[in-house]
């Protein structure tokens, strides 16, 4: 029972603090097995499919934007100017930049020193990189086919070269760039790697433009064999460099800083 002289004050306080009191009106003795339960809680896993789709989200937007831009430009050129053979080398000179963006995405973990962390995860570095390769490979292929369809439908190229040949002309500089950038990435481990790759891409692009403009009839029967051989060689070399890259992702590469 409260003391008389505190009565008046307490009355006011009580009404004000009813809500505060209610906060503690249901207090219980603390749960006994909380820490143990929380520590041992097995979280629900995401399925592989969910993981793959989440990885799509982690591919930087610039890859999609540039692909779209290239496609749009091709579309615009086809409709606005008279399509000529020059469109081929224009597009095929832009394609290496898509390759640069794609390869830099695939090698992202190495460039930003996330390798070690990613290697220790459930879906490790190798898996993540393979998935990126798959997604970007498909995306690039879709872009290529899209552009080829545009070109063959809207022009006479289909009659002149055939679908396959056109693909070859567009793909070869792209492959050359893939090889060049992979070559750099596999041998150079520094912050400047991406700048070197940028330089390689610019070189490939310029080389392509040069060849196409300086060498007459570059897209005719005269040089057909050259294109075929170049293509086959580049495919082989690209695959070799890709395999090399992925082998490196299985474990941390030894260098002098590793003996700690």
């Amino acid at each position, binding site marked *: 029972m409260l003391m008389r002289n505190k009565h008046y004050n307490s009355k006011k306080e009580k009404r004000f603090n009813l809500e505060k009191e209610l906060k503690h009106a249901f207090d219980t003795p603390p749960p006994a097995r909380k820490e143990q339960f929380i520590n041992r809680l097995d979280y629900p896993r995401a399925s592989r499919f969910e993981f793959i789709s989440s990885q799509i989200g982690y591919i930087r937007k610039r890859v999609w934007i540039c692909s779209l831009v290239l496609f749009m430009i091709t579309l615009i050129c086809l409709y606005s100017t008279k399509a000529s053979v020059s469109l081929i080398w224009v597009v095929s000179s832009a394609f290496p930049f898509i390759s640069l963006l794609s390869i830099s995405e695939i090698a992202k973990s190495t460039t930003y020193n996330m390798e070690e962390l990613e290697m220790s995860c459930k879906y490790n570095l190798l898996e993540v990189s393979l998935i990126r390769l798959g997604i970007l490979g498909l995306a690039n292929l879709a872009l290529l086919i899209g552009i080829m369809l545009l070109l063959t439908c809207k022009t006479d190229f289909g009659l002149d070269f055939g679908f396959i040949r056109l693909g070859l002309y567009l793909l070869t500089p792209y492959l050359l760039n893939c090889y060049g950038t992979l070559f750099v990435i596999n041998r150079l481990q520094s912050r400047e790697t991406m700048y070197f790759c940028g330089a390689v891409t610019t070189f490939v692009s310029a080389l392509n433009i040069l060849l196409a403009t300086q060498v007459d009839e570059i897209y005719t029967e005269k040089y057909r064999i050259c294109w075929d051989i170049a293509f086959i060689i580049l495919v082989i070399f690209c695959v070799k460099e890709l395999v090399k890259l992925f082998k490196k992702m299985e474990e941390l590469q*030894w260098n002098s800083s590793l003996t700690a």
Partner: protein
Amino acid sequence: MELVIDRLTKQFKNKIAVDRISLTLHEGVYGLLGPNGSGKTTLMRMICGVLKPTSGEVKFNGIDVSREEFRDALGYLPQDFGYYPEFTAYDFLLYLASLKGINKSRAKEKATELLELVSLSDVAKKKIRTFSGGMKQRLGIAQALLNNPKLLVLDEPTAGLDPKERVRFRNLISRLGKDRIVLLSTHIVSDVEYIASVILMMKNGQIIHKGRLEEIIDVIEGKVFECSVDSRTAEHLIANYPIINIREESDKTFLRLVADKTPCETAVAVPAVLEDLYMYYFNKEVKKCE
């Protein structure tokens, strides 16, 4: 719960970084203590599957280190790590959570919870590139806990943390060690002294000492002496005994050293601490005495 390391070896060219180490670990906190170059990081990398051993095996509850289930139960904080340029702390945790196979809604909950745990809630949406070393380190600790790992491997986790953060970290690790295996490596003796239940001392790729703090200190208990002597005696002592601490005072030199018997008249035996053992083993000027 059991982590079995069986004759684990790593050889680089002609240097053996880890030399046939065999260990069995159970629940609790294990402190791996040793100087730089002793092979601690190499050992930890092999335990995490980041480095392939030259020979030997690592198994957690019978699951080999190369399998996905092993990594599922693993949380790892490397000595150094990067981040994707535009990531915020929150993004970083969500990304790693997705790599650890945690579904999106749970990942968001866990990320928020962990950021709170390491006191990074107020910078959760800030870019990592604005972070200080200590903040990045705390973020690293947070990511290691995302999948509630049964095996937690932390390489130099207290590097860059200020004393207050260190204390918080120690408390966190003590709590975590109750239900899981925690292996942390450091060259800071005080970290290990307070939280590890078992101490592993590593030198030149081998575990030279293993046991509870009291057990391993026993080796030099009664052999640690302190004295204040003149400079001539000091020189003599320095030349003949492993010195743990030297302090120049006005006219005398204060020495703390290890000796089997009393090294000089004025020497007093003092209780040994882990630091003494560390210096005794890892002091390069160790000379054979007696």
